[in-house]
């Protein structure tokens, strides 16, 4: 009996059960609308996890996230449409391109701190947006890019996976979501993760113990950008068309909302935030602009009264309860 109990409460077992349950979603959910929501949640969760790496764990206020998401999306679309690449090569190449751009932007901007870094990255975001809007020959300008092909079916171990159905897309997004989660988890729980947090907590002390803070920040930034590009790629092939809006600061602000609400500096926080905001956004969709007022209110209230977000807040509560009991 005790053995069974210890297996059930083991977090790896629970994780596995959760993954299996999620895999069964497309089997049991028949509503196309719900599937659409789930797929979007997966895509935005990847973007949120990515942002949290540089903002939550390394403490740098990156406001260019939407720009990199957009670069990833456009790069994937153009590689597939104009150069005939398949999805998987396009995914990787787009991520590499975006990472290189991220590296080049990170170099000058990460030398600054706090609000200067926020403004600098936001400026870059706007530059990307305007480029997407005006560089007609490359991006199709305000009309955007249409007709992005879906990923071709792949054969693996004798089984053929097609991605033309919602279920197929779901599994594709879930697969990349899991990869992102594993990458994030491994980084955070390693010496590298400790370095990121050290930079966040006290840069001078971190320098004095022999860690190159600039290098640490760049590594975190580029990784974050790489993951953002993955999310962008998924968005491109799922939605099938792009317009400059997906590279705008609106994307940045929305992902920021997911992360702040869910919990900066936690792993599950961004996921929780994405789920809540996406669900509420859909439920309250008819309220349109009022919905945005609600977003703003949530952001202001959370950052003033509960800056650790939902997950952070629950954790702090549990800690305090634990202290009271012991």
């Amino acid at each position, binding site marked *: 009996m005790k053995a069974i109990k210890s297996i059930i409460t083991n977090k790896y077992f629970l994780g596995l059960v959760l993954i299996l349950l999620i895999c069964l979603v497309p089997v049991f959910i028949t509503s196309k609308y719900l599937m659409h929501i789930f797929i979007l949640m997966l895509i935005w969760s990847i973007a949120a996890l990515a942002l949290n790496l540089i903002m939550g764990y390394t403490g740098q206020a990156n406001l260019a996230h939407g720009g990199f998401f957009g670069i990833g999306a456009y790069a994937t679309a153009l590689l597939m449409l104009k150069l005939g690449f398949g999805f998987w090569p396009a995914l990787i190449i787009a991520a590499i391109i975006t990472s290189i751009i991220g590296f080049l932007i990170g170099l000058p901007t990460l030398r600054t701190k706090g609000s200067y870094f926020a403004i600098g990255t936001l400026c870059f975001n706007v530059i990307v947006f305007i480029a997407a809007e005006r560089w007609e020959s490359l991006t199709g300008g305000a009309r955007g890019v249409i007709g992005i092909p879906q990923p071709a079916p792949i054969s693996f171990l004798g089984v053929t996976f097609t991605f033309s159905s919602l279920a197929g897309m779901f599994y594709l997004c879930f697969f990349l979501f899991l990869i992102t989660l594993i990458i994030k988890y491994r980084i955070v729980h390693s010496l590298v993760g*400790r370095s990121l947090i*050290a930079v966040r*907590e*006290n840069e001078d002390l*971190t*320098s004095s*113990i022999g*860690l190159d803070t600039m290098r640490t920040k760049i590594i975190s930034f580029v990784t974050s950008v790489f993951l953002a590009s993955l999310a962008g790629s998924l968005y491109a092939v799922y939605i099938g068309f792009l317009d400059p809006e997906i590279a705008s600061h609106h994307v940045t602000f929305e992902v920021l909302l997911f992360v702040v609400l869910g919990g900066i500096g936690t792993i599950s926080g961004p996921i929780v935030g994405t789920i809540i905001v996406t669900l509420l956004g859909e439920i309250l969709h008819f309220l349109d602009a009022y919905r945005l007022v609600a977003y703003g209110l949530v952001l202001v209230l959370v950052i003033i009264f509960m800056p650790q977000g939902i997950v952070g807040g629950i954790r702090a509560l549990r800690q305090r309860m634990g202290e009271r009991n012991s």
Partner: protein
Amino acid sequence: MLEVRNLSKFFGGLRAVNDLSFRIEKGEILSIIGPNGSGKSTVFNLITGFYEPTYGQVLYTGEDITGLKPHVIARKGIARTFQHTTIYLQNTVQGNLVIAHRLRTKSGIFGAILRTARSRRDEKICLEKADEVAELIGLYGKRFLPASVLSQEEQKRLAIGIAMATDPQLLLLDEPMGGVTDREMGPLVKLIQKINEQGVTIGLIEHKMGVVMSISNRVVVLNYGQKIAEGIPAEVSKSKEVIEAYLGEDYHA
């Protein structure tokens, strides 16, 4: 081991450090003393790369380290503490010490993502070092506590521990006794001596004269950024210039 040559740091018109030269010999405990504002912390900042000198050089085991970045200097084996106790408050004692040993490990982000054997080995090494240092500074039993709940004196010990976890050959301590009660001083002094006995050269900035006189091999006295005396404690305490510099200063003996 460490040589400072004609070191100068001017902040606009203010000469914080002016044409300063002295050495720290291997294995000794050298104290730097002087009235408030005489430039002592600035000297540490210059040596450890937090400030760039206006003139002069810093040489470490013969190598010119002038103007190198702080993390590079730490890797070369010079560790320091800060005047205001600087530790990672949100982290546990063990966490503080683990990250302080990171500089001696090589695994990077790919190692972390793929959980390579090397990255796991590095983690183990850092953990072992952390426990070893925790033992040294007497916080082994408290190593899982967050640093924020430690007492003032324990936090000072942790700061020294962080510096020691980097495996330094030269340890620069900036006012380790600051804000410590007379009763707590004894164990702290013993810790510094123990570290020195283990072979670590120590540079010490301190105001508590009793400590300075009792544990230092040699003393350098600064006033207005310049050296006004240098020698063994007994000589320096009798020097006319030193007494004049401190005239009116209430010092703890």
